[in-house]
């Protein structure tokens, strides 16, 4: 029977546990993720009464989540998008629009926001995916500028240059709170979801296919991977999560104009930089990057911002250069290297 099949091997392969193969499965990753979230929970608990720090933590978790979302297509898939602020802005506008015009709770508005961002991302990516390396990045940058002009033009949706302001009506259903702890927890929840999605993808066939495409798309294709379709799926998931982050951001700051939401540097480039610094393509790299970059930036802005405007950018640039020089695989890569060295040392 097998002999007649004309295939290399049809027989069912014996199943062993994944760890025997040196492959990490989702279940193991889930345990690590729970530990990581527990540590973050302890940090929040430590600063319970400290409004200033809770604010920084909320922003840190938001950007950690955004960078984690970016990492799905940017890190695993190797598609270096600098245009993710577009999906962030879509999330913000859809959430604000549903809430202010239709009275829909932001909690529910996040779903259509995510869906719309996923659709838009697939439509714009389709032609752009033909471009490789720097050309792809430049095209996504250009996309940001185009969408920014559109956002300024369509005042009825975006409020034009004045932007949108969401009136302060506190309440859980409105996702508007007086205390900062609620926002810190909200953003932590968002981070947890993005990490869960990234971990699930990274430890499944889709993640392997994305990594194969990143490493060598010719090989991926010859192995039967539909390269365009796989990249589109990765992009759509990444964009959907980005939009959820945008919706949460909108309800957090309650005032936002197009240049803020579609900021090339403060959103599009920053999520990529945070990921690079933390460890591109790794699961916890974006979180580690955000934990380093966001608090540092906030403090610089608070202390030096008035004196030397833009000093936060200089510092971010210096961190990036140092990472590029000394930690090629980011903080997560360096941590992993140390861990393996310790384990090897123990064995011998």
């Amino acid at each position, binding site marked *: 029977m097998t*002999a007649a099949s004309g295939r290399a*091997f*049809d027989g069912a*392969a014996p*199943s062993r546990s994944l760890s025997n193969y040196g492959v990490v499965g989702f279940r193991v990753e889930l345990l690590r993720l729970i530990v990581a979230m527990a540590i973050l929970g302890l940090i929040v608990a430590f600063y319970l009464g400290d409004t200033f720090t809770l604010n920084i933590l909320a922003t840190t978790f938001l950007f950690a989540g955004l960078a984690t979302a970016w990492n799905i297509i940017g890190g695993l898939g190797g598609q270096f998008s600098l245009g993710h602020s577009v999906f962030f802005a879509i999330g913000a506008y859809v959430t604000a629009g549903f809430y202010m015009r239709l009275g829909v709770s932001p909690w529910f508005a996040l779903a259509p926001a995510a869906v719309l961002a996923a659709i838009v991302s697939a439509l714009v990516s389709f032609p752009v995916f033909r471009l490789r390396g720097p050309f792809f990045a430049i095209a996504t940058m250009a996309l940001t500028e185009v969408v920014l002009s559109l956002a300024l033009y369509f005042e009825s949706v975006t409020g034009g240059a004045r932007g949108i302001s969401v009136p302060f009506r506190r309440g859980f259903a409105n996702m508007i709170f007086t205390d900062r702890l609620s926002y810190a927890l909200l953003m932590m929840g968002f981070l947890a979801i993005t990490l869960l999605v990234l971990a699930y993808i990274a430890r499944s066939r889709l993640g392997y296919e994305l990594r194969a495409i990143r*490493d060598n798309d010719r090989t991926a294709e010859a*192995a*039967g991977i539909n390269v365009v379709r796989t990249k589109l799926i990765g992009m759509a998931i990444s964009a959907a999560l980005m939009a959820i982050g945008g919706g949460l951001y909108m309800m957090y700051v309650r005032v936002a104009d197009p240049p803020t939401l579609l900021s090339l540097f403060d959103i599009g480039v920053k999520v990529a930089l945070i990921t690079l610094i933390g460890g591109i393509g790794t699961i916890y790299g974006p979180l580690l990057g955000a934990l380093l970059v966001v608090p540092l930036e906030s403090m610089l802005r608070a202390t030096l911002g008035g004196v030397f405007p833009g000093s936060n950018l200089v510092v971010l640039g210096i961190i990036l250069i140092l990472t590029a020089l000394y930690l090629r695989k980011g903080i997560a890569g360096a941590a992993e290297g140390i861990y393996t060295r310790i384990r090897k040392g123990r064995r011998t």
Partner: protein
Amino acid sequence: MNMNVANSSTTPLIELDRVSKRFGGLQAVADVSFSMRSGEIVSLIGPNGAGKTTLFNLITGQLQPSEGVLSFEGREIGNLKPHQRARIGFGRTFQISQTLTSMSVLENAMIGAFLQEKELAAAAARAQHALTLVGLDHAAKRRSGELTLGERRRLEVARALSMNPKIVLLDEVMAGLNETEVEEIISLVRKLNAEGVTFLVIEHNLKVVRAFSQRVLVLNRGQLLAEGTADDVLANPDVIEAYLGRSGQ
């Protein structure tokens, strides 16, 4: 089931009908026609630049032919993309080995295994089996970037095998391998062939060509120069002329 078997004995597995490929003014493949039955081992030989790799790329879809018709199991496949051809049963290696360097050796082979298996554990088991076949099972957990050239070539073969292909196209996999490794690949090809897998092999080493080919195709300047058993073809004066005249091998 019975119909399939009957079918496969009458229709060729792959068939090329007057296939050509031009790169600008260069005719890399010219009017090539041949077919292969299921279960054959065919070698494709010819001097450097003869168009062998180009012909492979036409068969597995990396390149589109300028003219001609390609069929697989009696069905025209000219409009199928490389990944679609992989899914119907084409496995291949590349002349310049294409390792997925961020992954372990096993994970490289898993990329092929995912064609048949959805779950990580099943793909890992299948990949491990393929690594065992090519003698790389001991290196499964190593980083693929650390492999020697010979090991990389065997990893390519393992990735192709883990796709469970009907036909495997090997582009000079023996280059850079030592004698023992070459022997291992030869016996692997024979063993898999005995189980029904079809092979089309580009090979410069004529000893290897003699060792396993049931049939040899000679390509020269894009054209099919000769076709037959290894002994016949290698005794053919045109073939000797093409080899000595062009690259002095």
